């Protein structure tokens, strides 16, 4: 457009007719809050106000969340309008609608509902009323609010208040508390309807009561009732809680409108799948990239979480949590933080289970229905539960069993009989290994002190841990490279002075863009760190090697992580040996070195590699089914 044309349009005075047409045009193109929607809700409000039948209250409770969404829209609309008169012109039924809602106890009992309603009223209040409509609106708003807060419709109650000197507020609170107590008592009555399904038990009541409690979830006086509802054992078929109630409680809990005790939270998770999923996903946010959680921080997060305890109490919760873990794992094989989280979660779960004094084997089997049963107990047994001398033997057995399992599946693959079931078995075995990764850590530790002839099985286990799928049959070469790395490390630690070529080869293996045939840099890094700690070499020597390799490859942060998780494991397992003190001192010294290296790094120049892969979104996880073909097509 030429400048002159633009200038003309800007200065052109619209004639009155044209300007009104223009504004009409604008009106039509603006997204109007349509009158039909308001009519719909007004009709609903009229119906709800009609009779005090229990089902009108029920209907209101069922519509509560949609009603609140609509009120939010209305509120935005009201706030966007320049004046109340304009609002009333656009939506003449608005006053009637809001007025009816004011007298609907479901709406006014519900905290967010009440807030939205009052905000709408405030929105319609004009500080300086411009015309009769606005003045009238102001008057009406004051009147309605006054009535709501002060009117007493129960004559007998009023008389009692006067005769006995109990003020209205106190009286109403008393009545409410009494109601809650009465309902709570009814719920508490145990039900033995397992005997005869035709027997009317009090559990029929549960659904009705929970529905009625939808607007009351954040009311402190109703807390005992909510607690009683949540803690009802679900032994009776009729003992179902309303889904709307569970959803309302979940959202109140996550927006901190209500404080729930531990057991109540566990019960909520038990009853409501969506609230459990939300809790697990918020825990998993720690392991998203860019959050930079250290192993200590992850451990602390888990210590604060109620999820392990909930899993120990209810097998069904554990199964759901595991399914979510599986989903995440399938999306991000290389995410070391995720694997560490899962490992730590499992050990917390294990501790909680022990506290509950369950018979370990029975409940274990129930908790891991999909895992290869022969591997379950051997993997689940912690290294601290057996003498250190037995570790190697045990590890070898584990490695061989897993190897056999994967070979079976891969043979089937070669025949062309690609059974998804087979791949599932391998995946499940790998998942179990992740949960019991203490054995992988033991493998790495042993590798630091192994002879060449002993390092086969631990190396295989380590490689499998980092590369469960044998994509393009790369495992063989990955193993070869892993052995190479191990060799390099051995010679580094044995030789004086430091052989430069060996260092270089190691650094190459740790490069940021690993070849598909070479093992994960994290694998090699954990080997390095374990060598530094456990190899019989002087501290200064180990430190020099660590510094050199880490410096050249730029993996300081990752090295710190590996060292921390090693320290945490040793602290936890608290296996006392003559070596313990020496080991801890050495770890501390190495940590100091690394900390200095971190500090020396220019903050602006953090070109540290992250070995954690691309982010994932919650929605993606929930949309993707839990079961997906584990093998992805590769080159």
């Amino acid at each position: 457009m030429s400048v002159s044309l633009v200038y003309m349009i800007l200065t052109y005075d619209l004639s009155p007719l044209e300007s009104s047409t223009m504004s009409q045009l604008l009106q039509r193109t603006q997204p109007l809050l349509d009158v039909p929607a308001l009519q719909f809700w007004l009709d609903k409000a009229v119906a709800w106000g009609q009779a005090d039948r229990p089902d009108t209250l029920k209907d209101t409770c069922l519509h509560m969340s949609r009603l609140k969404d609509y009120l939010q829209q209305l509120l935005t609309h009201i706030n966007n309008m320049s004046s109340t008169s304009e609002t009333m012109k656009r939506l003449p039924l608005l006053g009637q609608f809001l007025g009816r809602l004011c007298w609907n106890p479901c709406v006014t009992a519900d905290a967010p509902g009440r807030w939205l309603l009052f905000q709408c009223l405030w929105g319609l209040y004009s500080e300086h009323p411009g015309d009769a409509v606005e003045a009238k609106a102001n008057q009406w708003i004051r009147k309605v609010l006054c009535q709501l807060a002060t009117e007493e419709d129960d004559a007998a109650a009023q008389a009692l208040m006067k005769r006995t000197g109990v003020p209205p507020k106190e009286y109403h609170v008393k009545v409410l508390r009494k109601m809650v107590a009465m309902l709570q008592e009814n719920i508490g009555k145990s039900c033995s309807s397992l005997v005869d399904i035709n027997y009317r038990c009090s559990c029929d009541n549960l659904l009705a009561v929970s529905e009625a409690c939808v607007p009351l979830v954040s009311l402190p006086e109703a807390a005992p009732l909510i607690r009683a509802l949540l803690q009802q054992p679900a032994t009776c078929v009729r003992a179902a809680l309303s889904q709307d109630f569970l959803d309302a409680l979940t959202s109140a809990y996550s927006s901190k409108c209500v404080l729930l005790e531990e057991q109540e939270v566990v019960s909520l998770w038990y009853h409501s799948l969506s609230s459990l999923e939300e809790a697990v996903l918020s825990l998993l946010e720690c392991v998203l990239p860019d959050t930079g959680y250290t192993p200590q921080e992850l451990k602390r997060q888990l210590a604060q979480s109620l999820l392990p305890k909930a899993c120990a109490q209810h097998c069904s919760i554990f199964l759901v949590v595991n399914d979510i873990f599986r989903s995440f794992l399938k999306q991000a094989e290389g995410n070391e933080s995720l694997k560490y989280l899962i490992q730590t979660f499992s050990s917390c779960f294990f501790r909680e289970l022990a506290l509950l004094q369950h018979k370990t084997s029975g409940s274990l089997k129930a908790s891991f229905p999909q895992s290869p049963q022969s591997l379950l107990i051997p993997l689940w047994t912690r290294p601290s539960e057996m003498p250190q001398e037995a570790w190697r033997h045990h590890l070898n057995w584990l490695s061989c069993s897993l190897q056999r399992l994967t070979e079976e599946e891969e043979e089937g693959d070669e025949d062309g009989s690609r059974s998804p079931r087979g791949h599932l078995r391998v995946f499940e075995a790998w998942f179990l290994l992740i949960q019991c990764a203490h054995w992988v850590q033991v493998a790495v530790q042993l590798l630091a002190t192994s002879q060449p002839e002993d390092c086969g099985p631990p190396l295989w286990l380590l490689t499998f841990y980092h590369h469960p799928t044998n994509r393009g049959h790369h495992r063989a070469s990955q193993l070869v490279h892993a052995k190479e790395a191990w060799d390099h490390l051995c010679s580094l630690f044995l030789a004086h002075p430091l052989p430069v070529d060996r260092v270089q080869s190691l650094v190459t293996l740790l490069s940021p863009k690993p070849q598909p045939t070479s093992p994960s840099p994290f694998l090699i890094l954990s080997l390095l760190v374990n060598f530094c700690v456990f190899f019989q070499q002087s501290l200064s020597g180990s430190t020099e090697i660590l510094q050199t390799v880490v410096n050249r490859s730029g993996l300081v942060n990752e090295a710190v992580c590996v060292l921390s998780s090693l320290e945490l494991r040793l602290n936890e397992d608290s296996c006392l040996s003559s070596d313990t003190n020496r080991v801890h001192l050495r770890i501390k010294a190495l940590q100091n070195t690394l900390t200095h290296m971190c500090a020396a790094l220019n903050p602006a120049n953090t070109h540290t590699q992250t070995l954690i892969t691309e982010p994932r979104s919650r929605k993606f996880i929930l949309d993707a089914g839990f079961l997906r073909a584990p093998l992805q097509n590769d080159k």
Partner: protein
Amino acid sequence: MEAVLKNLSSTAELLAVAARSSVVEQWDKQTLSRAFHWARYCEHLFSRFHNNTTINRVMGKQLELTNESLRAVFPGYTDICFSDLFQCQHLLLIGLLKNPDLPISIMKILFDTASPVNNQQSDYLDVTGFCSHIIQCKSACKVLSPLTDLSGADVEVQGAVLMERLEDLLSGGGEACRTEHIVNSFLQEGEGASGHFCLVIAAALLTRNNSAAAAAQTASQDCLLDWLQKEQNVLQQMCSALPTTLIIDLAKRHLKCRDAYCDVLKKWASSMEYSMSEGEWVQANTNRTVSFQRLTEHFLALFAACPSLREDVEKELNVLNISDGDFDVRGLSVWGDLLSAINK
């Protein structure tokens, strides 16, 4: 005492100003909190001294003086008396909300949907959400009431409150006439309330207090029972209007109730005549509260709950039957027919 009386006056003035003056335009959150603080103070005064006739009178006099001066200032001023002060905060609230000059910002504070934390007791209580909380409680009661029983929580609460007041009275020096005053005042509410009133009395008599106040509760329940025995028509009303299960609970709980109930039943029986046209025993008086059938059911229920009573009552009925002639024919003696109905 001087200071207290002065405070009392000041609060009465505060109430008047809050309701009628445009000064409220200047109020802010602090002023509001302070106002409610004073109102609470007066409520406290009431609960401390309303039983004490001397102080009651002194306070009343002070208020009269204040009323006089306020009447001069505010046209159409309604007097306030000491007995109104139990709900001083409520009066303040009504006054404020009806005052057209109350700034909308103050209203917003009162109606703010505050988080639960704000409602805790503190020195200068935060009045944020004061009205919101009231509305929430009232609405919650309405939401839950369809789920509760016939007698309802409000009846139980009223019964409990009645008990509390009686305990208060008795512990404070036992002015028995005041007991009657309180209980009688319920009757004054008119016919409509009487059925409800029976439920309240029953609830009051059935309240159970597990704490140390059990002795006080027994004393006040006794007091109530004594009053009840003097009020025959209330007793009869209770026996006819209340559900049988409730009456039986009362009979099991209080011996006096059991005996009173038994007496009422016997009185009902003695008021019956045999009607040839209906072929049944009916009450002679114009308002027939109970049928013969129902009377039998009452007796049976009472015996089921209190088996020890059966023998004595049957003996008594027998004696009465004998005095009536001891005939074996139906329709001649209500006692005989009653006996045979019970023993069927």
